[in-house]
């Protein structure tokens, strides 16, 4: 049984077809990469899965439930979390509070008991604090808990964004260019980190990445798209030698 399944998904923006007839299945526990040249529709696919856009045609199933056209917060509740290409941390909240926002969707107490700090809410609030702190410990950010997120180095901001997504207790995590702007050493650390959370949080990870070192290094399966259409799929070795992939990235030689 696949965890996520996209069935002939099409997304058009006016006359532009950003995603054309895209289908794929993700198995539980899998680590899969989505690559393609700039503007090929990778982030659009993520936005379709997470509900920021609704598909023009086709269906998206998660856990055998149809989630196409649902709102982003409902989809997160169902178990899909994501990070963003351009880091989107909450600047007015500290590091711990950023993670605690991810716990808010499981809060059962109503606003009334929150305002009057009734015992039920206080217990939940303490638990939320503790879980958020443990999560920060698990990703080695606990010593920065009361810092402003903008004061963190770039690599740690990325990590915090991932930790915040993990706080929603997802089954599927979507990472949009997690290694963007990182130097080789930071990228190396990130690869280890991704493998670490994949195992320890019982996740399935779907990631977009431009740094081939990262993609080829850790992802057993790679999907390549160009102009919104899938052009190749498979293990890194096959992808690297696929003529259509080379063509999409490097162009065709004129005398070929």
């Amino acid at each position, binding site marked *: 049984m696949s965890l996520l399944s996209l069935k002939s998904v099409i997304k058009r923006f006016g006359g532009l077809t950003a995603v054309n007839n895209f289908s794929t299945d993700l198995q539980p526990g899998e680590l899969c990469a989505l690559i393609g040249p700039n503007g090929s529709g990778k982030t659009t696919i993520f936005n379709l899965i997470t509900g920021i856009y609704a598909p023009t045609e086709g269906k998206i199933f998660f856990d055998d439930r149809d989630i196409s056209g649902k709102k982003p917060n409902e989809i*997160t*509740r169902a178990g899909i979390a994501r990070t963003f290409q351009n880091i989107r941390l909450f600047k007015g909240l500290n590091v711990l509070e950023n993670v605690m926002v991810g716990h808010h969707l499981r809060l059962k107490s109503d606003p009334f008991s929150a*305002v009057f700090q009734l015992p039920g809410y206080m217990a*939940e609030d303490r638990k939320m604090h503790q879980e958020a702190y443990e999560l920060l410990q698990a990703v080695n950010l606990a010593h920065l808990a009361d810092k402003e997120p903008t004061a963190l180095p770039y690599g740690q901001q990325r990590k915090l964004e991932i930790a915040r997504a993990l706080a929603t207790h997802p089954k599927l995590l979507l990472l949009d260019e997690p290694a963007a702007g990182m130097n080789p050493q930071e990228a190396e650390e990130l690869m280890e980190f991704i493998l670490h959370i994949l195992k320890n949080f019982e996740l399935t990870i779907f990631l977009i990445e431009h740094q081939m070192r990262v993609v080829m290094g850790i992802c057993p399966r790679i999907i390549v798209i160009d102009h919104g259409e899938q052009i190749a799929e498979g293990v890194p070795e096959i992808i690297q030698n696929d003529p259509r992939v080379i063509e999409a990235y490097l162009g065709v030689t004129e005398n070929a």
Partner: protein
Amino acid sequence: MKIKRNTLLTLAALAVFYGLLALAENTLNTYWVRILNLCAVYTIFAVTFNLIFGYTGQFSLGHAGFAAIGAYVGALLTLSPAQKQANFFLQPILPFLANVEMPFLPTLIIAGLLAALIGSLVAWPALRLRGDYLAIATLGFSEIIRIFLVNWQPLTNGAMGLKGIPEYTNLYWSWGAAIVTIFIVKRLIDSSYGRAMKAIRDDEVAAEALGVNLFKHKIMAFAVSAFFIGVAGALFSNLISTIDPKVFLFTLTYQIVGITVMGGMGSLTGSAVAASLYTIFLELLRPIESQITIGSLMIPGRPGMRMVIFSLLLLFVILFYRKGLFGQKEFSWDWLIGFLRGKNRKMKTSQTLGSTGAADKENKS
């Protein structure tokens, strides 16, 4: 222990504040008591605006409309039947209101609830909009309320307004309501719901991706705000005893926005301090609207001059002090104690330095 100490300090401060209010109520003349009451009303206005804009990031300009609803409910429910008959001499008042006369507390609560209800109904479609568009929609709503007040004569007595409203509002009511408002808004923004609201303010897309229901939290902020604006409106009409639709022009909203910006977006302390300073300064500036003679130069009185000063003040704040008086900081006991301790420590270290210096001298000699 620490929390207990702060609670005790807060209770003590409240007791002292109550004493000061009692002193003011008994010794100051009615003019100054009214100004202090207005300070409380404006504090509520600014704190609620801060909840909507400073903490939830929704630029709503509907404050005057909500305040008008509260003020008219406050007036219509407390006016005696005889006074109502005197007020509505053109056309009689709607029959179901003719013989209603309520005590003050239920009046305040009904005023708040009605404002919250209408606020939520308006927010329902309006909160689909963002930024400037929301501002325009809520501003429009505020004007619609005012047009209703002018034209629905059997309910509101139209442009003639309502007179002889009983002056129930005293310092205990007004500041009591202000303290309750600050308490509830503070507790709300410090709760998990408040964190979600701040997340919406900082980044709507990311907040929604973390499972925050945008609509629910925005409506919540709106309803809580509208409730307390309604209460403040009722306090206002029972304070100045005469209201008409012109009181609730959009300039009232701009004043509230100005106060909140001056106090600091995201600081309740800032809102309270700025509201009080603003109200008092505006009264102190009253002389400049009357005729001034400097030597042989005679400047004729111009009503509205005070607002020119207010605008200049706002410009100054925006140009040089963008974060307002308090920025996003709040007053807290820990801060005060830390501040006092810091001062003491400095004094102590300088003293010990001085004494060791003296000891050195003694040794040398």
